[in-house]
């Protein structure tokens, strides 16, 4: 039996109103690979990511995880992925530490020092107790990245993970992804400019607008 591809999409069709957003998309991602989704705004990058993680239902076609349709055990599939959308999913009135405790804590038990280390790791240690409302977009993005350092799921689905980040921040994203790939994980990321990821692991997928 050939190794079951970890993440596979077959013949995905999705419409948004009259726009044929996903037109027969097919892709496969192996362990240790980072697939970059490129394409102009509105080409369907976000829709593809949300379809891959099972939030959106394709009208035709299917998504397979380890050879099985994700619909068969959607919750089990969700337990093995991390999805970070266009906006960092943070509550403005909570601090970065509180946000992470309630966000990742719901998925796995987290000791507070583990949270502090993760925030330190992404350079968010200095503002870990300030309400997120007072943080800049770049700082919020770093707090969201800290969530990735706290999870150990095989699949990462990231929607433009480097927006609002300076050079150093983009290096940080690359480092986190490289580490994840070495552990055999896989990443699908919608991006505008290339991630600083090992070239051997990098693959591209271009989405064209209808």
């Amino acid at each position, binding site marked *: 039996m050939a190794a079951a591809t970890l993440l596979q999409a077959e013949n995905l069709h999705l*419409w948004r109103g009259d726009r044929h957003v996903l037109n027969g998309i097919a892709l496969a991602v192996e362990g240790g690979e980072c697939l970059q989704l490129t394409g102009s705004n509105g080409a369907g990058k976000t829709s593809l990511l949300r379809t891959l993680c099972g939030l959106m239902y394709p009208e035709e076609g299917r998504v397979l995880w380890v050879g099985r349709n994700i619909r068969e055990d959607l919750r089990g599939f969700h337990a093995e992925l991390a999805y970070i959308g266009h906006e960092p999913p943070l509550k403005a009135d909570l601090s970065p530490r509180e946000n992470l405790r309630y966000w990742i804590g719901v998925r796995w038990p987290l000791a507070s020092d583990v949270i502090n280390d993760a925030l330190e790791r992404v350079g968010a240690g200095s503002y870990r107790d300030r309400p997120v409302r007072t943080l800049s977009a770049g700082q919020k993005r770093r707090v969201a990245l800290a969530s990735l350092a706290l999870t150990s799921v095989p699949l990462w689905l990231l929607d433009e993970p480097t927006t609002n980040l300076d050079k150093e921040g983009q290096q940080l994203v690359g480092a986190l992804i490289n580490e994840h790939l070495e552990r055999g994980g896989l990443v699908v990321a919608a991006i505008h400019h290339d991630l600083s990821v090992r070239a051997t692991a990098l693959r591209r997928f271009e989405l064209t607008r209808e």
Partner: protein
Amino acid sequence: MAWTWFHRLGSPPYLYSLAARLTPWFAWPTLVLILGGVYGGLVLAPPDYQQGDGFRIIYVHAPSAWMSLMVYTTMAVAAAAGLIWRIKVAHAVAASCAPIGASFTLCALVTGSLWGAPMWGTYWEWDPRLTFELILLFQYLGYMALRSAFEDLQRADRASAMLAVVGVVNVPIIHYSVIWWNSLHQAPSVMKLAKSDMPATMLIPLLMMFLGFTLFFVTVLLIRLRGEVLTRERSASWIREAVTL
């Protein structure tokens, strides 16, 4: 899932032409039954010993009340099918049902108050049956309002379907709580004519009206369904053929 895949593939274009062909087969019997029922109800049936000729309103009130409930149930079943097996056509059926059901609920409400008015001395009485129809009308209006609140048709379909399913669970609860509530404050006003002791000349027109209204529902549903299926269909080739039909 194979069955739904096949069903969805085959159904919209096939259903569109089928609905077009079937419509006359339902329209004509509807006309005959309703005309016959009205003639029977107004002319042949003897006056009621209590309410005299006033009781003849039952020939339009009872079938309308039956429609309000039957159409809501049909809508909820179609909505549930659309949600569970993700069949677009089922959502098209549910969308087509709502306005028909709402219009007949309104009709049942007004004819009911007109029927009770001679006895009550007023046009509106918080009689359990009328109160039930009124609340059912609100549920129809809620369904149509929710459906029109969404721009994206697919989300409108699924959200309104969920509401229809929740609403149909509420119907029996409303029915019994309204009767319980009404029994607290007044003796129940006997508005229902026990169908069993009606003579044939009274009963047959009523049954004709019930069947006529039901077939009328199917007729209008088939017309509306073609439009709803068309708006949900995407493949251009099929639309061209349907539009020229």
